[in-house]
C-alpha cells in the first residue's frame, strides 16, 4: 500500500511539474546504422554489419532550458568478414536523460549554444553463435554521466516554415560499467548466453566498476534537422555518429553511423 501511495505521489508531482513546463514534444524515428567494431575477447578481427534502429524521445522545457528523455533500441547482424562462425547478433539499448541550458547566442550567426548534463543507461550486447552449443556474449553494460553541448539555429524556408538544425556533442565522463572478464564464456554466469536466466540485479551491481574517461568513453555526435510543418507537427532527419572505447583488460572499440528519419509532435 505504501509503495502504491508513494508511486502515486511521485506521479502527481512529476505530472504537475511536466504541466508547468511550456512545451512538450514527442518524436519517433527509425532508420539504419552501419557499425564496425573490434573486440579483443574474440580475437583480432574487425566485425562489420548493419542494424535497424528505433528511437523514441520525449522532450519538455522552453527556449532557455529543456529536458529530454529518450529510449533507443537497435538490433542487427554483424558479419565476421573472415570466420567460420555462424553469425553474430548485435543489440543496443539506451535510455538517456539530459538537461540543457542555453548560455550564449553567437552574434550575427544566431547560433544558440546550450550546455548541460545527462545520464544514460546503456547496454551494447554482442552474441556470437557458435557451431557447437557454446555461444559467447560480450557486452558493455553501464550507467554513464555525460556532458553535452548543443549548437542550434533556426532558418526560415521559402514557404515561411521554420527548419531547425541542431548539432549535439555528447561525451561520457564517468561510468559505472560492466564488461566481460578476460576469460569469458562458460564461467561468465551473468550475461553469458547460457546463463541469461540466472542474471540477477545484485550480480550485475556487484560486478559494476566505476571507470573514468581513460578506461571507457563514449562520444555521440547528433546532427538533427527538424522540418516544422505545422504548429503541432514536423518531420525529423537525424545522423548520429557514435563511438565507444573500452580499455580494461581487454580492448573493445566500436563505431556506428546511424541514419534516422521520423516525425515529432508538439503539445
Amino acid at each position: 500500500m505504501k509503495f502504491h501511495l508513494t508511486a502515486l505521489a511521485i506521479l502527481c508531482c512529476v505530472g504537475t511539474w511536466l504541466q508547468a513546463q511550456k512545451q512538450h514534444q514527442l518524436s519517433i524515428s527509425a532508420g539504419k546504422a552501419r557499425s564496425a567494431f573490434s573486440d579483443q575477447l574474440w580475437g583480432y578481427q574487425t566485425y562489420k554489419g548493419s542494424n535497424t534502429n528505433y528511437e523514441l524521445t520525449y522532450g519538455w522545457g522552453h527556449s532557455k532550458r529543456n529536458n529530454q528523455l529518450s529510449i533507443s533500441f537497435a538490433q542487427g547482424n554483424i558479419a565476421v568478414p573472415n570466420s567460420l562462425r555462424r553469425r553474430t547478433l548485435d543489440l543496443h539499448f539506451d535510455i538517456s536523460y539530459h538537461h540543457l541550458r542555453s548560455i550564449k547566442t553567437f552574434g550575427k550567426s544566431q547560433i544558440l549554444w546550450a550546455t548541460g548534463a545527462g545520464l544514460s543507461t546503456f547496454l551494447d550486447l554482442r552474441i556470437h553463435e557458435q557451431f557447437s552449443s557454446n555461444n559467447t556474449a560480450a557486452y558493455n553494460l553501464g550507467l554513464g554521466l555525460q556532458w553535452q553541448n548543443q549548437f542550434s539555429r533556426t532558418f526560415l524556408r521559402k514557404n515561411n516554415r521554420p527548419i531547425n538544425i541542431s548539432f549535439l556533442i555528447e561525451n561520457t565522463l564517468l561510468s559505472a560499467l560492466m564488461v566481460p572478464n578476460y576469460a569469458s564464456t562458460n564461467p561468465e554466469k551473468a550475461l553469458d548466453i547460457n546463463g541469461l536466466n540466472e542474471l540477477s540485479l545484485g550480480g550485475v551491481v556487484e560486478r559494476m566498476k566505476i571507470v573514468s574517461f581513460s578506461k571507457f568513453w563514449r562520444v555521440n555526435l547528433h546532427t538533427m534537422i527538424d522540418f516544422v510543418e505545422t504548429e503541432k507537427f514536423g518531420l525529423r532527419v537525424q545522423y548520429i555518429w557514435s563511438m565507444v572505447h573500452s580499455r580494461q583488460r581487454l580492448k573493445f572499440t566500436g563505431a556506428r553511423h546511424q541514419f534516422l528519419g521520423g516525425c515529432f509532435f508538439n503539445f
Partner: protein
Amino acid sequence: MPIKHYIYLSSVCLFFLSCEKAFITPTPSDEPEQVFETFWQLVEENYCLFEEKQVDWQALYDTNRSKITNSNTVDAQLEKILEEMLGELKDGHVNLRTPTGRSRFDYTEGFPSNLNRGTLYQNYLNNNSTLAEVGSIVKAVIDSVLYMRITSFGSLNNGDGVDLNPTIIDAEFDAILADHPNTKGLIIDVRGNSGGNTGNPDAILARFINQPTLAYHLRPKNGPKRTDFGPAEGFNINPRAPQYLKKVVLLTNRASYSATNYFASIMKNIPDNVTVIGGKTGGGGGLPTYKDLPNGWILRLSTTQLLDLNQQQIEGGIEPDINVELTEEDIEKGKDTILEFALAMF
C-alpha cells in the same frame, strides 16, 4: 552565419570521425605467417593450464615458426602444424576448427577402455532398445539394484547447436528414482560420457546433500601473463529434496571427460554414501573460450580453471576409490567386471 563557425564545427566533426580510424585496428592479414603469429599469441595469453601441462610453448614457436612462409605454406600444412602444437597441450577442450574439420586430442589413447557396450547391453541390460543410447539416461534394475547409465551431460538443444535448456537431467533422474523406491541402492554408470553442461552433474548431486554445499571453484585467467589469474571463486550447490540416502556406486573410465570428470570429483568428495569404482577419468578441468584467427579458423582454448572443493586441479583426471579394470579376457567371456564389482557391493 560567419564562415569561421562552419569551420569550427567541421573541425570538431573531423576530429571525432578520425578517432574511428585510429582506434579500430584493422583485421590482421590472413597470410600463413600472420595466422601463425596470432595463433601462438592467443594461446600464450589465454591458455590457463600451462603450469599443469609443463609445455614449453616458446620452444614450440621456435621449432615451427621457420616452417611457415607466406609463399610456400598451404592451408593443409598450416593446419597440421597448428594441430600438432595444440596436441602438445594434451587437452581435450582445446581444438582448432577449419573448413575441413576439427582437431581433437584423444585423451583415451593408451588407456584401457574399461567399457564394452556390446557386453553391457547384451548381457546385463537384456539388449533392450536403448542400445543406441538415445536419451540421456538408460535405466535398468539388476539384482534389485537400480542402474542408471548417463550417456551425456549435454544440454537440450534445438538441433541447430543452440541451447534451449542447460539442465535437463534433474526431472528425469528424480522420476526414475521415484519409480524404483524398493531397490537396494543405485549404480550410476558414466563410462564413455564425454561431458556437457556442468549444471547436469550439479542437479544430480543436489539429491545427495541436505544443505547448500561448496562443490567447486572457478579460477579464470584475467590477463595475458602466465600468472594472471583472478581469485578462485567457490560455488555452492543447493540440495533438492528428498535426499537419497542409500548406497551409491559411480562407475568411471578414461572416457569420462569434462563435465563427467567434474561429476566424478564432486561425487567422490562430497556425499558419504558414494563410492567411485572403475578407471581414472580423462580430465578436462579447463572451461573453454573461442577465438577467431585472422584466416577465419576458430581456436578453442581452456581459459578458466575448474577446481574441486579443495581448490585442487581436476585436469589430470579423478582416481576412483577402487580401481577395477575390464580386461580383454573379461570382455571375451562376456563379463563387465566393473559392473559386477559394483553389484557385489550391495
